[in-house]
């Protein structure tokens, strides 16, 4: 890893922030290359520059090892969720109660859970539901939340009042109440009702974060300049505001991914989450939680798998955020 950059040690070479309050980013991994490039910031510049923002981001991402590693990890998880039998030969529903909570034995490296099911097989098979719920709910909540929050922050006034107050009402709905009311009528055994429910309750938080970021970002001089130059609302929002406001949304969304996978467990615990015979990390984690004193191995593996998934997405989020920051180049 290259040396981290500490701005408070005088004498370092720096990139001068061209406009606004936002300074150049500390891009630890690609610092040398970005320094050579010293691109103009996106913003009041001509249109081609703005267009190159996204292609530059991609260009930079491809050479970022963090991005590559996280992408490979995610690819691996996706492959496992589609074809779990690639690495697990057992049946996750085949359980032998006489082996309840026993430790590992040949052929069963991670031991057994309370029902005597093989923990390894269940962890592998649980990937599908958990990753689908995690990714889809996060993408849904992040898109809906940043769209509505962004509009509220950017336009202010009535937009803000209505959208924010609607968000407030949604905030007020207790997860348990919402789950019991909205999900108990569902008999589908797919993950989609759960995904939809999490999006419904998850978007207000991301909307608040996006709104706050947009309110700050639109104060920047280059946004005001763009407005003065007659840029339309849509372009201003997409080209100038969004890239500057996206970082907190990405951070919150990547962590939310993990909490959403856990939230699915809470819903299952309440009897309204994923319906059996669906297998998921959430269900296994919540079953293992109460047995922590008796059989910690039951918790270790599904929770470990959840950690790796969240790690992959946090790394991905970091890399994307760095690459998207126009001030860096």
């Amino acid at each position, binding site marked *: 890893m290259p040396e981290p950059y500490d701005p408070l040690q005088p004498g370092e070479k720096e990139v001068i922030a061209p406009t606004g309050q936002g300074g150049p980013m500390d891009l630890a991994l690609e610092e040398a290359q970005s320094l050579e490039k010293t691109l103009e910031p996106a913003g009041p510049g001509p249109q081609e520059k703005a267009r190159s923002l996204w292609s530059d981001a991609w260009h930079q991402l491809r050479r970022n090892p963090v991005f590559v590693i996280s992408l490979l990890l995610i690819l691996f998880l996706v492959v496992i969720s589609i074809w779990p039998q690639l690495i697990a030969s057992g049946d996750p529903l085949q359980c032998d109660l006489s082996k309840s909570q026993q430790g590992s034995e040949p052929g069963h490296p991670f031991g057994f859970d309370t*029902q005597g099911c093989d923990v390894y097989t269940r962890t592998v098979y649980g990937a599908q539901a958990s990753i689908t719920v995690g990714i889809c709910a996060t993408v849904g909540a992040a898109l809906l939340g940043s769209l509505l929050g962004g509009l509220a922050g950017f336009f202010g006034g009535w937009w803000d009042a209505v959208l924010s107050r609607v968000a407030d009402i949604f905030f007020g709905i207790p997860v348990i109440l919402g789950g019991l009311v909205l999900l108990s009528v569902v008999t589908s055994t797919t993950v989609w009702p759960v995904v939809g429910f999490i999006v419904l309750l998850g978007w207000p938080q991301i909307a608040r974060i996006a709104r706050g970021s947009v309110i700050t970002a639109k104060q920047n001089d280059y946004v005001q300049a763009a407005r003065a130059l007659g840029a339309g609302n849509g372009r201003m929002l997409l080209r100038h505001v969004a890239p500057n406001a996206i970082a907190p949304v990405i951070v919150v969304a990547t962590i939310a991914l993990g909490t959403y996978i856990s939230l699915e467990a809470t819903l299952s615990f309440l*009897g309204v989450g994923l319906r059996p015979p669906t297998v998921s990390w959430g269900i296994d984690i919540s079953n293992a939680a109460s047995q922590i*004193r008796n059989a910690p191995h039951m918790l270790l593996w599904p929770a470990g798998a959840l950690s790796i998934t969240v790690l992959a997405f946090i790394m991905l989020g970091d890399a994307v955020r760095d690459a998207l920051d126009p001030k860096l180049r």
Partner: protein
Amino acid sequence: MRGATHAKWAACAVAVALGATACGGGSDGGGGDGAGIVSSSWGDPQNPLEPANTNEVQGGKVLDMLFRGLKRYDPETGEAVNMVAESIESTDQQNFTVTLKDGWKFSNDEPVTAQSFVDAWNYAADVRSKQNNSPFFSNIVGYEDVHPESGDPKTKTMKGLVVKDAKTFTVALTDRFSTWPDTLGYQAFSPLPKSFFTDHAGWLDKPVGNGPYTVDSYTKGSGMKLRKWDGYTGPDKAQNGGVDLKVYTDNNTAYTDLIAGNLDLVDDVPAQQLKNVKNDLGDRYINQPALIIQTLTFPLYDPGWSKAGMEKVRQGISRAINREEITKQIFQDTRTPAKDWTSSALGEKGGFKDMCGDLCTYDPAAAKKLIEDGGGLPGGKVTVTSNVDTGSHRVWMDAVCNSINNALGRGPVCTVNPVGTFADYRNQQSSYKLTGPFRSGWQGDYPLIQNFLQPLYYTGASSNYGKFSNKDFDKLVDEANAESDTAKAIAKFQDAEKILAQQMPSIPLWYQNGSAGYSERLSDVKLNQFSVPVYDQIKVG
């Protein structure tokens, strides 16, 4: 203010370091001379604390300390022995004369008279009082007058209750019911003082009864302090100075407080701690049968389950459930595989007997054969339903389904259908919407075999959720109730159980034990058949 908090915090830390245990409260001291206070776990009662409105263990716990009725069930044998009653006599098993003992009074010095009982029972039966347990009075003549099916009652009293003098009253029942006197140990039949009627709100804030304890203070939602009543003249005087009931929202937390030394008695050891109990408590742990049975009831209102031949399928499912393994692995032997439709806590004398035999024994091959002979599972599938908001219902349902699936070897034919709340479950159950076997738990109100059979399987009975109906069964129950000799009555009830085995309207799963753990300060801790600690016998120190 923050400074002060910090100082207290630091002082606490020091006190703990020095080995003092009483930081931030803790249990009161007290010697071994019967003055020690027992601190015990409690759950918030579900309903206001009126005797006829309390139908769950947590409220029952308090009533058991505050009230003594005509009879009381011996904590050891379960036998109904006279308490306030001197005698309860009848010549025709239908009209009873109740005579009270002298010397009983409420803790406000009001004497316990025949009127105290009659007023209490009339209040309990009156539909305007909205008491949960009003059906317990439905076999008294004149019940319909105070409890009409709709509209307001015409009167406030039941004709069947007549006060003869201060110590005597008579009860007329609508049908013959030989074991009726033995039901009177149930708390709904407790006497009530006049203040209950004159200052109802005041009474609810600080209930007054005729039992060995009085209420010292009651903070709803957090706890109740009960103290020994020195004026108590009954035979079962409290052996300790009092009981502090402390509300816990989670039994696991109560257990943690017990092993940390902040609590003396936990009467519900959480399932996930059962493996650690030996380690944590040694022999300060009780695990004994209680009057609770769990069954899986079939929806016989659904033709798919009730058509001829299906009884074999129902029996087959019963044989596909490995009760031994489940009670051992999931419940750590705190439940016992069921062998009949009553409860092992009744004892042989009370009518408990292995009436299910092979049909309650795990045998995958026999299970397969029975189900095939009966025409197979309806639609090739079976869905097991229960609420999952309390207890460990989810865990055992999974285990039952796995057992059935493993036994039948046809893949996941059995699935569980968890229902989020008890309320929702009850609504689905009582509107007959469930299409597969569903959980029914039954906790006996009194230790009588009748209580486990009639309310559940008699045609049209109140808790007959599967709509089981069998003429021979009904006839045997009627005969048993008319029988004046207890042993003969029990034999009739057992004959009725044989019909349950043939028809299998519900699968007996297991008997649930009462469990409790206690601190080193306590001795003589016992549970009664209702899995409630016998507080008055506990000694401290």
